[in-house]
């Protein structure tokens, strides 16, 4: 376990969770890309329902 003093702990706890922002953004963008791929790449090419 890493030994941190109270000042360092406080700094970590109160800093913005940059990694989380990047992760969430990546997941959101991946979902949009995945949706667009399914819609334009799989769904629409199948054509109308006969």
């Amino acid at each position, binding site marked *: *376990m*890493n030994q*941190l003093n109270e000042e360092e*702990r406080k700094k*970590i*706890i*109160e800093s913005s*969770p*940059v*990694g*989380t*922002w*990047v*992760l*969430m953004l990546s*997941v*959101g963008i991946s*979902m949009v890309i*995945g*949706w667009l791929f*399914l*819609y334009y790449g*799989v*769904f629409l090419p*199948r054509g109308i*329902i006969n």
Partner: protein
Amino acid sequence: MNDNTERNLALSHMWVAFIAFILACFMGEYQVLERSGFIEALDSPAMYFASVSTHGVLMAYVLTTFFIMGFGYYTASTSLKVPIWNKQLAWGGFWLALLGVILAAIPLLSGLASVLYTFYPPVQADTMFYVGATLLIVGSWVWCGIMIVMFLQWKEANPGETVPLAMFATTMNAMLWLWTSAGVALESLFLLLPWAFGWVDTIDVGLARTLFAWTLHPIVYFWLIPAYTAYYVFVPKHAGSYLFSEEAARAAFIVLVVFSLPIGFHHLYMDPEQASGWKMLHGVGTFVVAIPTFMTGFTVIAALEIAGRLRGGKGLFGWIGSLPWTNTMVLSIILSLLMLIFGGFGGIVNASYAMNAMIHNTAWVPGHFHLIFAGTTVIMYFSIAYYLWPILTKKPIYSNNLALVQLWTWFIGMSIMTTPWHVLGLLGQPRRISSVVYNNLMTLSWEPYELLMIMGGLVLLGSACLFIYLLVKTQFGSTTEVFEGEVEYAETYHPVKDLPDYLNDIKIWNKVIAVLMLVSFGIPILQFFFLDTYDSSAWGY
């Protein structure tokens, strides 16, 4: 506080839940084997549909309802630090619900209620099935009542104080379940039971499906909220961190509860009895539910990031490797969130009005709901059990390492099983079929995926058996060691003071739900009484 009754209540409920779970797991593996057609001796549509109906009822209604009640009782008692209000009533609810399960199980197991867990008419089950299901619901209402009474009593005794987050979430879930189950209760009381008893000759299938759609979506959130509760109130503590934002957590629970209710028509996109305008309204609402899911993802991952950095993790993602991966709660949330990403994506495809046509009633749909329910949700039920079992039984967990193996194998098995299931859906394999062998090239191309699903199912079955083994060994093992730990709930770094009333009470949200339900279900239900059922509805066509 002497909490023997609370511990017994929690254990009794959870044992019923997990016994149902293990039985259903064996049925699940049988079903994937039977459906593949690889073993001719297993071929039996009658046996298959009896099994798949029982599997669905045990997993979706018995495992969930009993787990949620047991977890809820213990959460209420430990977070509010008061005994359960009216313990006799709580036990009464337990026995009533259990009687309902037994009554429903008899026709299910004897093939007289092979109506799947959705029991859509005009497929009809034996009367005893509907009576049993109704008793299970009524038993769960007892739990809802007790949770709400305890919430209100605590607020009255502690004016101006913030209700603990765990209890706020539990009470919101109790309120959600009362609203959710009202749809299926109306369907049972006014349509299914009179029809099953033979008091009426016909049944309005459109109305029945509409009422079931009222229940069918929010019930998923009823199952999911205990998992989200663990995300917020257990995970940060186990990871060595703090709850990132109490306000965000409460807002997520509120939005989840309020918007999970008026959106059920995305299950009816292909049905003729509702107009496309109403379906569109519900479809848009469905996407709103993605907001609290993202909020939850952000809040709990942020808590994990803080934990990882406090443990020495550096860089943009270095904190992930520093997390305590050997803690069952931490491991399970990581695996749960991974499954939520893929399951959530599948849900967005389902909810997309046009694209739904591509996967509607295909194997994609059970692939999706297994990933969300049996994956995301149930893996958190496991870790809650691993956390609570030592506290409830006063004995240490039998083996943390085996528990970690169990969680990993559940995740791996679920990934192996649900990925080909989704692919099969895109290839056009229908759901709700007892056999996929038609001896043509298309169905032959499904075989490798079927084989993968069987393998995935086997891994899951092994994992489920290991889970039960660990609970049994923990509770009934020969150890003399006494476990003294108590439940600990995560808190924010800066204690929350003066929360606005709308983040600390359920009354206002009850009214909001009532308005939204009136808007989204009022005319769609009333139309059945004002229009000829063979005619189209007035709006949207």
